[in-house]
Every structure is written in structure tokens, then in C-alpha cells.
């Protein structure tokens, strides 16, 4: 293993991991507050990707500027899904949350198939790479990473510092106590799902400048996000960030040393392995 290859693997992995962390933060946020596993998370990401595709290829917008559209749009979509569907299964057995979010997911995929056709699309934006000390930095990935880190930092700051963010964390920790303290948990759930969807949407916009997009791309990212969240511990914010980077690195090194097809399976293998060895995740607390 040459040091240059090692460095390349590290760089690729970390850049990828930043975007995974952003997407997974949204999933873990939703799970923490609602105790619902959002199977539609990857599909929300797909919607974000198509928002950028439409804005860039249809309206000639700068793909990065399209984030200002995809984030609020996905927030709104998330609020609607929460208000009319997910809110009704909060507190029900987990199967119901899985099923309704799956229902939402296939409705959105079907709509995307109707509007955008099943074709594989791409957003063309900055290509090429910078070389630094023998290590190549792909420009789109570098930008996606920078934006993902900024968005993740903003979301974390919001959760840690703002009143609303504190109320969200309080609700995730103990809903009853939150209610007693005067938190309007129903509103908190709306904001939490909206924010989670917005993070997925931003992730989708960033993924669209790196990879090809298609209406059924969501399930792949749903599972990757599951893997990240389980790695870090369901409901743990820092765990999601750590898990994202670990998955990014695992994929990049498997891609380098084993092959790209094997890299695709890494997320699932990691998911199953972590569940078996340490189901509470790296930073999660063991609970009954």
C-alpha cells in the first residue's frame, strides 16, 4: 500500500463522508424526535436532486444557488408529510411508521417518474480536479464537501444553541418532560421532520453535482443513511457525523483495494455487522 494511494483513499473517503453525514443527520434527527424510521429519506434526497437538476438545466441557475430553493422546498414537503401522514403514527408500533413512509416514498418516486421520465440524468457543473502533493481533489466533490460541512455545522448550531433547537433535543430526550416544560411537541415534530427533509434535500442537491441521478436512486441512499445512523447510534447527532465519515472511508478504501462493485455492498455489510456486534452504535446509549 503506497502512501500516495493511502492519502488518496483518505481524501476521497472524507469528502464523500461529509455528504453522508449531512444526510444521516436528518435521518437521526427524525428518528430521535418521532421514533419513526423514515424509509422515505433517500427519496426526499432524490427530490432535492431533481430540484437542482430542474433549476440548473431548466432555468439556468447555478447549481449551488439552487440550494436556496431545494432546502426550503424540502422543508415544506417534510412539514406536509409530517402533518398529514407521519404525525398519525407517532407512538404506534414501528411497523406502521415503516409502512407509511414507504407509501410516501413510492408516491414520490412515481411522481418523479411521471415528471422526469426514468432516464438517468446529470447536472453538469465544474469538473476536473486539483492536484496537491500527488493527491487529486475532485472539484465537485470538494465543493460538495465544503457545502455539506457548512450546512451540517449550521444545523448543529441551530440544534445546540437556538430555543427551537433546544426544544427539539428536549423532545427527543423525554417527550413527557418536554410537554410539562411547555414545549409544543406537535409543532416540534413538524419542525424536526421539515429540517430532516431539508437536510436530505441539500444532500440530494450536492449528490446531483457528483453523480448521475434517476427517480429510483433513493433506496440506495436510504440504506446508506441507515448504515451511518446505526454506526453512530440511532438518535445521536455526533454519531451521524462520525458514521458518515467512517462509511465514506470504508467505501473509498474498498473501492481502491477490492473494486467498485464491492464498495457498493460495504454499506450493507457494515450495517449488518454493526447491528450484530454493537447494536447501540458507537456513540449510542444502550437502552431497553
Amino acid at each position, binding site marked *: 500500500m503506497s502512501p500516495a494511494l493511502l492519502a488518496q483513499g483518505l481524501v476521497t473517503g472524507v469528502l464523500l463522508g461529509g455528504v453522508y453525514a449531512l444526510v444521516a443527520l436528518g435521518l437521526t434527527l427524525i*428518528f430521535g424526535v418521532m*421514533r419513526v*424510521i423514515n424509509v422515505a429519506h433517500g427519496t426526499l434526497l432524490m427530490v432535492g436532486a431533481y430540484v437542482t437538476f430542474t433549476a440548473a438545466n431548466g432555468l439556468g441557475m447555478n447549481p449551488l444557488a439552487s440550494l436556496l430553493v431545494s432546502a426550503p422546498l424540502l422543508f415544506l414537503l417534510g412539514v406536509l408529510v409530517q402533518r398529514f*401522514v407521519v404525525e*398519525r*403514527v407517532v407512538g*404506534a*408500533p*414501528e*411497523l*406502521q411508521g*415503516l*409502512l*407509511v413512509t*414507504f*407509501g*410516501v*416514498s*413510492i*408516491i414520490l*418516486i*412515481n*411522481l418523479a*417518474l*411521471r415528471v422526469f421520465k426514468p432516464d438517468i440524468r446529470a447536472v453538469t457543473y465544474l469538473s476536473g480536479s486539483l492536484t496537491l502533493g500527488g493527491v487529486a481533489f475532485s472539484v465537485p466533490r470538494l465543493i460538495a464537501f465544503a457545502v455539506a460541512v457548512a450546512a451540517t455545522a449550521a444545523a448543529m448550531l441551530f440544534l445546540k444553541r437556538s430555543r427551537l433547537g433546544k426544544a427539539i433535543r428536549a423532545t427527543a430526550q423525554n417527550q413527557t418532560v418536554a410537554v410539562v416544560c411547555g414545549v409544543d411537541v406537535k409543532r416540534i415534530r413538524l419542525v424536526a421532520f421539515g429540517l430532516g427533509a431539508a437536510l436530505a434535500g441539500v444532500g440530494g442537491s450536492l449528490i446531483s453535482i457528483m453523480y448521475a441521478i434517476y427517480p429510483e436512486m433513493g*433506496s440506495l441512499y436510504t*440504506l446508506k443513511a*441507515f*448504515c451511518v445512523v*446505526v454506526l453512530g447510534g*440511532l438518535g445521536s447527532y455526533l454519531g451521524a457525523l462520525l458514521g458518515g465519515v467512517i462509511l465514506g472511508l470504508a467505501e473509498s478504501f474498498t473501492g481502491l483495494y477490492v473494486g467498485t*462493485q*464491492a464498495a*457498493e*455492498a460495504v454499506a*450493507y*455489510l457494515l*450495517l*449488518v455487522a454493526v*447491528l*450484530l456486534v454493537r*447494536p447501540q452504535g458507537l456513540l449510542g446509549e444502550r437502552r431497553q
Partner: protein
Amino acid sequence: MKGRAAVATIVVLAALGAFGATTENTYYLSVGYSIFLYVALASSWNVMSGFTGYTSFGHVAFYGVGAYTAAILMFDHFWSWAPAFLAGGLAAALLAAVIGWPCLRLKGPYFAISMLGIAEVLRIVGLTWESVTYGGTGIPLLSALSLRGFYFLMGGVALAAVGVTLAVSRTRFGLRLLALREDEVGAETMGINTTAHKLAAFVLSAVIPGIAGGIDASRVGFIEPISTFNVFITIQMIIMTMFGGRATVLGPVIGAVVLSVVREALWARYPYDYQALFGVLIIALVLFMPEGVMGVVQARRRAAKVPAP
């Protein structure tokens, strides 16, 4: 009541048999086959997840492994159909035993996610292990039986699945499963070996999907990993069971019959939107009828037994 149920069962079976033996309409035969397939799949899912409460969100894994086992044995090793289908069931049972041992220690959402992950891993194995599975190219198969033959064969498998559910629901084994669903620690305290019971239910619920997978591969005449390990197959097993009523004998049967017909009708009428319409249906069922048809019937019956004050 018992005598009447037996008579009704015999009448329904005789009618289905007479229909299958005489009809020349291939469309009805294939719809009948597809209903039997889903009666078998949904009933099997119910044995595990309906009774124990452990949501298998990747039950298609057993269907797929059965399909691939049977297909490879028939295509590469020239097995005849009957032993190949049975081998499919055996392979699924083995898989259940191997993954059940570690996965069944997981609770609630963790078990559901692990099963989803396992079904996805198998899909990728199917795509990448080309020397055995032929990857994305898939495996072409000669149809082992006539359509009528498939109708009766799958009908028999469906009947077996309902029989297994009936046996489970009438024995102490089934009661113990229900006990551990309601309170696992409590069941353990009562002296039930919950791990052994969960594992037994899991293996039992895998055999029939494995057999059905092999039959279906031969019926379709071609398999490839993406459509074989399709999460939508799992979702249908779940939603059909929920529609009818989980942990009941008739529930999955009612769900499979009604929703298969609905699916066919939606698919024929709205080929481009049927997925979305099925999504709406799933959401509506969960939100408005979480206990299913049998749940509503049982609630009525209980209400009728209690004299009005």
C-alpha cells in the same frame, strides 16, 4: 360453528379446484396463481411477524434465495422441478437459521433494519457473484409445468401455508409466540425459551417462501437479482397481512385475495400511476384500519357478546 367452517372450507377448495381444472381462460388462471403465491407469502410472514411482533422487513430474502437455489439447480445441474423447489425451501430455512441466530437478539427497529439490510446484501451478492448467479444477465428457465399445473402446485403451497398458520394458532407454540410479542421479559419469566421460539418461528416462516420462490422463478421463466430481491414483495406480504389482520389464520388469506385483485386492477387501468395509488392505499390502510378486517370483525363480535347496559 366448527362444522360450518369445515364445510365452507371444503366448498371453497372444491370450487377453486373445479375452476382450475375446467377453465380455458389463461388470464384467470394466472391471476389465481398469483393470488395463491401471495396467500403463501403473506401467511408465512404472518407466522413470524404477526405472531412474534418481530417485523421482518426483508422477508423477500427467503423468496429470493429459494428462487435462486431452484433456478441454479435446474439450469446448471439439471435437477427436475420437484426436488429443486424443495431444495429452495431448505436453502431458505438454512438462511433463516443462520441469520436468525444473531439477528433475533435485536429488538424493534434494529431487527427491521437488519432484515432490510440482509435482503439488500443478497441482491448485491446476486449481482456480483457472477460465476454462480450469472449476475445481472439472469438465468433463463424452461417452464417446468403448464399454467394449469402451476395453478394447482401454488394452490397446494398456499394451502400448506394456511395449514401451518392454523397449526401455529391452535397450539401452545403459537400462544407462547403471542405471549412473547406482548411482553418478552414476562414470557421469559414464565419459563418460555424465547430465543428458541423466535428462531423456530423464523425458520418455519422461511420454508414456504423459499419453495414459492423456486416455483415462481420457473413460472416466470427468468430470474435476475433486482426483480427477485425486490423490497416491494416484502411490502406486499406485510400490507396484505395487515389488511386482513395479523396473527389470524384468515387475515393473510383475505388480504392476499383482495389486494392482489386490487393490484391487478390498478395495474391494468393505470399502468403509469399504479405504484403511487398503491402507496396511497398503504398509507390509508395503516392510518384508518391498523387492525385489519379481522380486527374489525373481532371487535364487532366482542361488542355483540356484551349485553347492552
